[in-house]
């Protein structure tokens, strides 16, 4: 990783040049319907962006796994059915200024998307996208990225990272894609850049480290052992089972596949966002539901994130962004739940030496 400097003017020119070259540039922007909210939206110029103001309402995953996506088109003809190619959605794009928690989520989900079968819909977009994250100084009491092995300075998934400094940004160049993007826009000045980055990182991490201690490596196993613990009967009483948490989460990726008619001859098959929190998620056609109450469904979410995904892919399926807890209408709090189960894990065994 090398550090370079980019001025505001040069960054502005970079954005303008990208837009002129028909590359979509997405950045955090003040929401159209509510000035107090930030959304990831396409920009035409750097000045449209609101970098480092607030965590956007939704994560960046929708640019790789859209809320709804046509996966095939069919046409019923007299001779039979024809399946039509869906035009590739993988157009070059740059995501500018996403938070490290959102970006790391993409790399974490890469694991399941490449598990034996490579999901070209996801990876086509991943490969066509250059991600320039922003060092995060926005952590509040609900964030816990450092506890899951990330941090406001995490470069996981980023091609480059911007660190605000006097006159512009220090650019941390991480991948060849990132280097290629910034090559003609960064200055050669390298003095004191490392020190500036270190200072910014230290300040940013301090904001969030106190929120939750690092989750230990054996938590996944202890959560699996506690699958039938009575605590699960009390944790989800206020949960509405709406799945709003999953929708705003950078790592929740569960989806549904449905067919839709356009008319009597033509239609599409779609992949839509879905969530294990909904009552119908595991409902069999027979009427049997292995997760018949919200207790089991909530348990599944926590187990999937902190036990199942780690045991299968070596990654916690959570980036500590805190959105689920902020958006939950029932007041559920993932950090609190994790905390309760960690207490169980560290409780001293009955009798005998530690």
């Amino acid at each position, binding site marked *: 990783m090398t550090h370079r400097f980019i001025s505001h003017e040069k960054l502005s020119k970079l954005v303008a040049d990208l837009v002129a070259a028909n590359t979509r540039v997405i950045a955090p922007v003040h929401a159209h*319907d509510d000035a107090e909210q930030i959304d990831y939206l396409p920009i035409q110029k750097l000045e449209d962006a609101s970098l480092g103001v607030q965590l956007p*309402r939704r994560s960046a995953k929708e640019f790789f796994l859209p*809320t709804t996506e046509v996966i095939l088109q069919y046409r019923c003809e007299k001779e039979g059915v024809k399946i039509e190619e869906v035009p590739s959605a993988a157009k070059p794009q740059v995501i500018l200024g996403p938070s490290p928690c959102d970006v790391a989520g993409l790399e974490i989900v890469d694991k399941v998307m490449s598990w034996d079968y490579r999901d070209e819909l996801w990876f086509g977009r991943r490969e066509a996208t250059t991600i320039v994250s922003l060092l995060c100084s926005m952590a509040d009491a*609900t964030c816990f990225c450092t506890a899951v092995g990330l941090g406001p300075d995490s470069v996981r998934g980023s091609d480059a990272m911007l660190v605000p400094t006097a006159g512009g940004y220090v650019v941390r160049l991480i991948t060849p894609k990132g280097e290629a993007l910034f090559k003609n826009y960064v200055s050669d000045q390298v003095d004191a850049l490392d020190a500036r980055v270190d200072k910014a990182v230290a300040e940013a991490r301090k904001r969030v480290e106190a929120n939750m201690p690092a989750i230990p490596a054996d938590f996944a196993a202890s959560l699996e052992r506690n699958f039938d613990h009575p605590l699960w009967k009390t944790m989800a009483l*206020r949960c*509405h*089972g709406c799945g709003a948490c999953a929708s705003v989460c950078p790592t929740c990726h569960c989806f549904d596949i449905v067919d839709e008619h356009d008319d009597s001859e033509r239609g599409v098959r779609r992949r839509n966002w879905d969530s294990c929190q909904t009552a119908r998620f595991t409902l069999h056609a027979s009427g049997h539901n292995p997760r018949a109450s919200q207790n089991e469904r909530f348990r599944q979410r926590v187990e999937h994130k902190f036990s199942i995904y780690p045991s299968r892919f070596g990654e916690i399926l959570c980036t500590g962004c805190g959105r689920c807890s902020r958006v939950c209408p029932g007041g559920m709090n993932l950090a*609190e739940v994790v905390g309760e189960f960690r207490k169980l894990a560290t409780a001293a065994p009955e009798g005998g030496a530690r």
Partner: protein
Amino acid sequence: MKSLQELAFKLLSEGTVKVVIGYEEGPRGVRPAFITDPAQTSKLIFDRRCTQNLATYLNPRRKHITALGKAAVVVKGCDARAVAGLIREQQITRDSLVIIAVRCGGVLEDPTSTAELTADTTSPRCGQCEVREPKLFDHLVGELPPAPPVNPRRSEQIAAIEKMTAADRMDYWNQHLDRCIRCHACREACPMCFCVECRAERALPQWVDPSPTSRANRAWTMMRVMHQAGRCVDCMECERACPEHIPLGLLARYVADSVEQRYGYKATEDPGVPAPLGVFRTDDGEEFIR
């Protein structure tokens, strides 16, 4: 609030109820509480941050809650109207629960806020409230606070929309509904959306595409709002629950006003008063229904 806590303690320790559904302090502000242990009743609070409508937790399809046993539920006036609705529509019986009503001075729109009640922070529904001293209860607690400030935001928005042409109104709603992701949080937070199988999730036949497309999002939202006609208690939980901040409370208010204009009916705390679209009368003015 001490009288609430003492009452809850009494109800639990005497075994009158098995769970008290109320409000407590959570890590991020006020949240619903499910107290089963008399020793925990000191957690129960009631103040201006108690926005949530707890009646939604009485829905009989929430089996993990009904499994706890007979409940006492803390309600404001608006919430009590929802309880009345559930009784009116035979989802619960009056004697199956204990209603603890609280005298209310209005609530913040955001239960995680600590702001004082102002014209900006108060929930827009509170300014028109006629049930600050609820009438449906087994126990009535608390002092009656002063009337809340009026938040004009919603009436201003409705007035602005009413001045729009039909095309502009459509644009306005499409712009919002395009963001809908069909999480159905609006439905889950709504006490009157208690259907075991929502019409929108029925596959045989499929009334509404489940996909979050423009046309399906419109169909879903309009279907849900129309199903609320004459039933909605205007608690605005739908709007609060929506992770995309779609202004669903506007539709709720509009439909309620339309029902009041046409049928002279407002959601009421009296479960004995039938709702206009939920009852058949032989002297109905319409020919087609006879």
